[in-house]
């Protein structure tokens, strides 16, 4: 069980039990749907981006495994008040973290709580669970109308 705790860290379990910023967002400026056909995870992501390209509000709803739920929850906390450019930097950095490509990491970026998800790099089948919310974020910012899939 010991290295399973590396994957399922207490912070992840906490965000899975009590996801933050969960539910619909009235007056969202951007939204997108993400879907992981392999495990049936799905989530809707809502953003309110103001005229200065700052993400003022971000919320999500959906059904998923502990990894995808916690990842979405922690992502919303991370993005609050960030600019769209910063959000894109976090996307790049998070994907590098989750896939174990540390050289892709942005050294100037403090990943903070996102680091708890670094355990997924040992579980290739679960990387998509962790990155689903982030790919959905990209779709929302691009204004994609069709749901994005991780397959």
């Amino acid at each position, binding site marked *: *069980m010991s*290295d*399973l705790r590396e*994957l*399922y860290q207490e912070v992840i*379990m906490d965000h899975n*039990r009590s996801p933050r910023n969960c539910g619909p967002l009235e007056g969202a400026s951007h939204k997108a749907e993400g879907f992981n*056909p*392999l*495990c*049936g*995870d*799905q989530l809707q992501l809502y953003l309110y981006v103001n005229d200065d390209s700052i993400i003022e509000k971000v919320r999500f709803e959906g*059904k*998923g*495994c*502990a*990894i995808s*739920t916690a990842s979405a929850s922690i992502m919303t906390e991370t993005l609050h008040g960030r600019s769209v450019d910063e959000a894109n930097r976090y996307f790049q950095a998070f994907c590098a973290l989750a896939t174990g490509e540390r050289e892709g990491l942005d050294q100037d970026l403090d990943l903070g709580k996102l680091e708890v998800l670094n355990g997924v790099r040992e*579980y290739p*089948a*679960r990387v998509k*669970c962790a990155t689903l919310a982030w790919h959905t974020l990209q779709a929302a910012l691009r204004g994609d109308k069709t749901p994005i899939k991780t397959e």
Partner: protein
Amino acid sequence: MNHLMGAPELPGVAAGLALDVDSIRGDFPVLQQQVHGHPLVYLDSGASAQKPEAVIQAMADYYCKDHANVHRGVHTLSQRATDRYEGVRGKVRDFIHAGSTNEIVYVRGTTEAINLVASSYGQAFVGPKDEVLVTEMEHHSNIVPWQLLCERTNATLKVVPIDDRGELILDRYREILNERTRIVAITQVSNALGTINPVHDMITMAHDVGAVVLVDGAQAVPHMSVDVTDLDCDFYAFSGHKLYGPTGIGVLYGRESLLNAMPPWQGGGEMITKVRFEGSEYNELPYKFEAGTPDIAGVVGLGAAIDYVAGLGLDLINEHEQQLLAHATARAAEQSGMRVIGTASDKAAILSFELEGIHPHDIGTVLDHEGIAVRTGHHCAMPVMEHFGVPATVRASLGLYNTRAEIDRLFEAIDKAQELFGQ
């Protein structure tokens, strides 16, 4: 018969006519390993079964001694390859009790068999206002080819619903059948639920309205003796790899009169007798449906798998698996927070379930960590998941090599998952 293989041996059948599973397990090299520090418990045979040494060796032996293209040359190797390839066709005929080897078409698998029928039979005999009937418990491969056919022909797809135990509602089936029903496509055993359908009676009812019936036997042939003549089905499809044989090979059984009436599906070598630019003449059955160089080694492996399974005896395999299923079902009833999806009275050895408060994918990761391989997800049966209101389930699907101790290990690992997630 495959004279090069020698007579199939009968290992694994102990005195007293029960499977000697300890001895059987020795036949499967893949089972002799540890995963994450635990002896592998393979409970994913419904997705693909493991291969006995006899299958692996038969294929190696074929490539080492006999490989050449089939039906092509006068040379010795080509004749040997052809003998082995055609010898297996006879084994398949006997295995499913078909009347003739003309009715045994080699395909890549169940999916290709269904697509062949949907394309060839469907295109020729289904038109606007006709109906094609499937059930709510079908695998996607027995839904999508029929949807494509209906789109091409403006026919209508009708669906027989299931109840909350995962059994077909036969009264609804009776109501939906009518003189416009051209094809009924049903699974004999549900891959997601384990339900065994009363296909014999359903076929009779379909024939009463003049419909032809395709039976998806992918999940049936590894668990029970199949007799297509007794079933009186028009088409029967199954895959080699779920029957302890290789991937990439499967079988379409088709009633000879129907196969003769159907247009060819794929064009190429082998399926013709004469090719001219003005028009070609097609080969006789079953070659009309076998364009191109086939998977000869796959066929050889399939033959060895049939020998292996038939050697043990499907009645004994079924009895062993039913004992395991009864044990698993009893343990499931005692497990707090566990909901079994699929509780039909007649079931094959499949236990699909969910655990309160833990997503199937997380359960799958914890079980893998304990060396236990299960399938998690929608099992290519999204309508079934929708019916039960779940995005996914965990599925333990049993095979002839599984043991009671392995079922106990599954439940110990489930305890650990519940402990980890505080459930």
